């Protein structure tokens, strides 16, 4: 008989190996899937994972895109991962991302067409504020009434989406847009544009912020008392209480940080790659970032790598659509499989397989 036996402590080597194993398993299963769709599996895997990086002429277009796509994913996932460590399940990052974009864009548009170097920083602050405020709703309700933050933050995503639809055809609509929904184009207005910092790299301010967030999160979680408290409350809530950690403060801190980072990601997106507030501005980064956080083992460096990998599947997926005519949805399936394999393999971090008869207790 095969059964699972709990390890005395999580196996670190296995924990580091699981994402790699999951990626390999996903490639095998994904290859089989592409085979069923009538494609050459090796060709499909190569188009998704290799060509965007190393094969010209795609690579010169795709490599910058990697940064553009990975930036928001990493920024949001870092914020989420700290909350997840504390056992605070904010799954409404998508809503915080939207609200950040709306707040930041509104702050910028209020000064249109002024020419000032202060406008963009102001927008970033307002974007973070928007996301922070939106995340404070579940935080406040959890602290004050003990309301489940999973459900509240999720409900607020839909509220934010409707709010986005409302403002993009209402107060934020471009007055010179001939009645079409959508705001002025922020990326074409010098004061608000989130410019590419180095030609041909895709580095914009959001990517810089993502790198800073990775370093900041690493320092916070490994070198700072607050980070220790966050981990403590997630792993041993009772011990944390005896140590004098106030759960309410951790809840406010974790949700607020995640909200602010997601809001900033939204602002960087709306002022750069996306350019304007439109009804379909929300692209699901907030949800994909949850996968990134898990794939990166809730560790800042892991998240950095996971974010790049996830961005690669987006770009590779687009390329596969173009070159092989694979349906757009197949890449979504691919990402879902990756998460599933990771979660499935993850069991061996905390458990090991025992083959043999069960001992009688």
């Amino acid at each position, binding site marked *: 008989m095969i059964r699972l036996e709990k390890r005395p402590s999580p196996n670190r080597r296995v924990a580091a190996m699981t994402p790699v194993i999951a990626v390999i398993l996903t490639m095998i299963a994904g290859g089989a899937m592409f085979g069923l769709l009538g494609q050459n599996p090796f060709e499909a895997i190569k188009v998704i994972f290799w060509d965007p990086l190393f094969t010209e002429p795609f690579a010169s277009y795709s490599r910058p895109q990697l940064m553009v796509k990975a930036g928001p994913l990493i920024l949001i996932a870092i914020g989420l991962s700290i909350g997840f460590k504390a056992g605070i399940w904010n799954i409404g990052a998508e809503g915080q991302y939207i609200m950040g974009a709306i707040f930041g864009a509104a702050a910028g548009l209020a000064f249109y067409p002024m020419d000032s170097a202060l406008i963009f920083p102001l927008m970033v602050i307002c974007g973070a504020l928007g996301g922070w405020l939106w995340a404070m709703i579940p935080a406040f309700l959890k602290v004050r009434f003990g309301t489940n933050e999973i459900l509240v933050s999720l409900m607020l995503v839909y509220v934010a989406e409707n709010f986005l639809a*409302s403002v993009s055809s209402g107060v934020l609509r471009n007055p010179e847009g001939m009645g079409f929904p959508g705001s002025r184009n922020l990326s074409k207005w010098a004061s608000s544009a989130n410019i590419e910092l180095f030609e041909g790299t895709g580095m914009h301010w959001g990517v810089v912020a993502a790198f800073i967030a990775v370093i900041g999160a690493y320092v916070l979680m490994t070198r700072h008392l607050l980070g220790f408290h966050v981990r403590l409350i997630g792993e041993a809530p009772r011990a944390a209480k005896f140590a004098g950690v106030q759960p309410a403060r951790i809840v406010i801190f974790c949700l607020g940080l995640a909200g602010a980072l997601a809001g900033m990601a939204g602002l960087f997106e709306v002022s750069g790659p996306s350019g304007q507030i439109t009804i379909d501005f929300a692209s699901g980064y907030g949800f994909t970032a949850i996968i990134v956080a898990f794939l990166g083992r809730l560790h800042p460096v892991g998240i950095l790598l996971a974010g790049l990998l996830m961005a690669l599947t987006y770009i590779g997926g687009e390329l596969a659509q173009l070159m092989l005519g694979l349906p757009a949805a197949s890449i979504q399936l691919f990402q879902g499989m990756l998460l599933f394999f990771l979660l499935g393999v993850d069991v061996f971090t905390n458990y090991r397989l025992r083959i043999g008869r069960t001992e009688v207790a």
Partner: protein
Amino acid sequence: MDFSSINPALLVAALMVSSTPILLAALGEMVVERAGVLNLGVEGMMIMGAVTGFVVGFNTEIPALGFVAAAGSGALFALLFGLLTQVLLSNQVATGLGLTLMGLGLSSLIGKPYEGMKAPSLPKIDFGPLSDIPFFGRVLFGHDAIVYLSLGMVAAVWYVLRHTRIGLILKAVGENHDAAHSLGYKVVRIRLAAIAFGGACAGLGGAYLSLVRLPQWTEGMTAGAGWIALAIVVFASWRAGRVLVGAYLFGGLTVLQLNLQAAGMTAGVQYLSMSPYLITILVLVLITSGRFKGAHSAPASLGRLFEVTR
């Protein structure tokens, strides 16, 4: 604005039809959560049901077979979640989200060749002269079998949870899985059964969308219905009767919104469509703050990991 074009009998009848998918999905999810499992993959299971139901219904031209296949595929897909969370002990939140993602991807792969085709129609049940009664005839006796099935299932779930031994065991597993385990109940098996039931219900709900509501297959057609179903479960504070109320309320708001738009109202429609979510949050706060009589909190073991210690 012209409100006279809105016929109340037709409005109520339309409300029942538009609420049926979310009613079915919410009812299934309610049972799953009562067993202590939080499955956030309702959207994925619904859309798998929608695509399977459509493909089978279209190819056999028998809608009933489509519904059976949809329930089957929903349950099978849910068991994937069950395998990961119950056997491999993965995190329920992440697994549920992954299930939704996979469902959306897989369904649009399967459904690609069927886009733009029309589903065989599901006949309305003929009640003879009963359906000629003014107002009530249209509201009560003018629907297809699935609408009645969904109402019957609400009653059945209510009865099973309230008055049978199976219901008691299910609730015991959801409230305190360690205690239930000590009493000798197979926690994992009971939960897997509940998860499969939830998947079957969500699959039926999805198939109702693709075979009756629209009736055709389009990519991503559930459009958040699964998440609304999750909201309804909370709104209903885990009670079968209130799931019905909640589903009809949410469905009603959707129908009202469409009718208002048709009647020429444009501004503020978004605020109307965000109201169900705001109401859900409000209800959630009222439940947890303990100031609301008759409110019940979530099953105590909801979303918690169950490990067999011995």
